[in-house]
């Protein structure tokens, strides 16, 4: 693990990864200090509606005359927390269920996977409505709802992988050692399924950012006028044909965030796999320093210096 982290830092030498890391770091900083950085009050309306970028409003204004940049900055705070929170929650629940499904005694494991199927079958909108009803609006509710909604995907992915991994000989070796089951599950099997989990995490993040705007339709999540990226995308969609700026800017930030996160997840994935660490391994031939021919005199039994 420690080596993994070190390798992860090493990955930062690649410009793409570094750029992604810096972008995300900036984003987080901005979100934390948005209140100080934002040029305007994000909910203050004005008569300067749908203004183009420039002159006073760096990224222009929306149909309420609110400053888009300020809304992006402040909105990021909520959106990043909510989508990361939801994705991580989903990952935790889903991975646990998937591991249970793949490794627990057949009854429990089956139960876990059947529970997953129940959630999968539930239309998100009904689930969301239910959650709002029971727990009211708000960010925490949104995190929980999306956490529950996205967990099954993790569970299925982990389950599918565990089916293979659990029968690998090194897992059996751990069993034979007497390593406790929990340790095998979390210390041996889980690391082997990191790669798809990491990919799914970055995909879930994207879905979470989009879904939070979809669910605001039900009044779930950030309540307007409080800014959120999802909400801005939704607002931007309505205006996309006449003033595409809002949509461009808000989706742009989401795309960049997803991309950066994916790149980082990819680097992490690489760092966590010792076989891939040093280079992009996969089907590329060994490095060759060609010294073609070599000594051409007929070979006696000459060996290198003994």
């Amino acid at each position, binding site marked *: 693990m420690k080596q993994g982290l070190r390798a992860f830092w090493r990955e930062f030498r690649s410009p793409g990864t570094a750029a992604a890391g810096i972008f995300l770091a900036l984003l987080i900083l901005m979100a934390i200090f948005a209140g100080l950085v934002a040029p305007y009050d994000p909910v203050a309306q004005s008569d300067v509606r749908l203004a183009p970028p420039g002159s006073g409003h760096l990224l222009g204004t929306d*149909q309420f005359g609110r400053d888009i940049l300020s809304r992006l900055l402040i909105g990021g705070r909520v959106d990043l927390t909510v989508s990361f929170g939801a994705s991580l929650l989903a990952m935790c629940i889903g991975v646990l269920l998937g591991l249970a499904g793949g490794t627990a005694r057949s009854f429990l494991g089956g139960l876990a996977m059947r529970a997953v199927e129940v959630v999968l079958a539930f239309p998100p909108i009904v689930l969301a409505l239910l959650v709002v009803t029971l727990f009211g609006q708000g960010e925490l509710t949104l995190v929980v709802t999306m956490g529950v909604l996205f967990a099954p995907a993790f569970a299925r992915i982990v389950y599918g992988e565990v089916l293979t991994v659990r029968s690998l000989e090194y897992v059996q070796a751990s069993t034979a050692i007497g390593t406790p089951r929990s340790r095998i599950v979390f210390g041996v099997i889980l690391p082997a399924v990191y790669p798809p989990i990491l990919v799914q995490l970055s995909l879930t993040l994207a879905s979470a950012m989009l879904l939070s705007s979809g669910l*605001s*339709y039900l009044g779930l999540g950030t309540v307007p006028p409080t800014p959120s990226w999802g909400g801005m995308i939704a607002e931007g969609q309505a205006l996309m*044909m006449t003033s595409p700026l809002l949509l461009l800017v808000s989706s742009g930030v989401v795309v960049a965030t997803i991309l950066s996160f994916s790149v980082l997840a990819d680097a992490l994935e690489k760092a966590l796999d010792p076989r891939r660490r040093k280079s992009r391994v996969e089907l590329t031939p060994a490095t060759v320093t060609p010294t073609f021919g070599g000594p051409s005199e007929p070979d006696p039994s000459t060996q290198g210096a003994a």
Partner: protein
Amino acid sequence: SANTGEDSTTVLTYGLDSDVPNLQTLKNQGSASMILNSVLHRGLVQYDADGNIVPALAAEVSDVDKQEYTFVLHEGLTFHDGSALTSEDVKASLEAMADADNVAKMYPAAKNIVSIDTPDDLTTIVKLSAPDAAFLSYMADVSGAILPSESIGQEDPTYVGAGPYKFVSYENGSEFVVEKFDDYYEEDKPSIDRIEFKILSDQSARDSALLSGSVDAVSFVGWNNYDQVSANSNLVLDETEGPFMYLLFNTTSDSPFSNPLVRQAVAYAVDRQAVVDSALAGRGEPLSGMPIPESSEYYNEEQANYYTQDLDKAKELLAEAGYPNGFTATMLSSSQYDFHQNTAISVQADLKKIGIELEMVMPDWPTRLEIGAAGDYDIAVYGTVGITNDPSFLDQLLTPAGSQNAPFGYDDPTVNDLLTRGRAATDETERKAIYDELGAYVLENAPIVGLAWRSQAYGYDKKVSGFSNIPGFLTFDSGYTLADATIG
């Protein structure tokens, strides 16, 4: 697109704004149902393209003191199924409208019917409990249609009526097709042989269909696409201001808005132009007074422009009401409809300026309706349209009969009295005086606060003529003009 096929049948394709899975002519099922009803059905009277009430199935209409109405049908009327349309059908239809359980759209007018006589097959005499000057304006609505008596009360729609088009096919969520009814009572009408209604519930999809020419006409061009449609040399944008947005208050005593001064303060605080600009994409007009459209005879210019934004005055009123520092309240709107949500946001910002902090509740539509009906709000955004151009529609906004549309708990004897008198008065000037008095009282008392007129536009191909947007509240009745439409 409109093709004149080899057999030279003319076809109009029409983009409808939503599906009507169970068309029930008597009921208010929204604008799409009104379009369909208007081609399938006819009532005794109808609106013409300018919004005037003109006889339809009834060849003659007469009244005695606005309390006894006599309708004489055209001779030889038949329904689409070939059965004769007689005064018995008229009677049955009116009785159905008068039955509270049917929740007929015409109920507010039909509930006053005390008797219906049918001396012969053509004549129907309707007696009302009190004079009702607005009776015909209700009957002219598409849901005042005369239906075959045997179809009334049936659960599944038969689509059989006496309108210019008869039903051909309906595919849930996709398409509703009608074709010309040869025995329609008006000679030479309709002109178009067949209308295919495509169900295009997505705003932008509908606009795209119109712009790409895959439909000839659509209900309701999106506000953001007005410019594109009017800029297109093949298309007509036919616009009117019909529905309007307003604020409702919870007037029961536990809400600060039970105090008329607070309500007035709200009326002074809101920036109506901002609502138009931010929630309606600029497609509309501020509604600064009584919601009586300019096209109405009861329009009162002074009352129409009663309020202007005046924050100082608003603050004063609040102070006077005992809230010098404002208060916190809940605002009900719905996130399901952009313009509801955005109106609320716009108002929230205005009220914040006078110290009223609004906490937003924006659930989906059914939840919104339930919360509204239960009165679990302090202030709410709503949008509606007058059922007729006649000011008697105001009872839907100002009395408990209006339920959803009316302020929660608002039941003012003065208002009730004026509304009853206005309805009963038979003399035009007397009526106008009563409604002016009502207007003055309501504006002062402010149980509702008008915000904005909403623009509604039909868009259609230049080669479609005769179809037009009936102005004002009657915009949703515009389907009547499809009977006059020609194509080519």
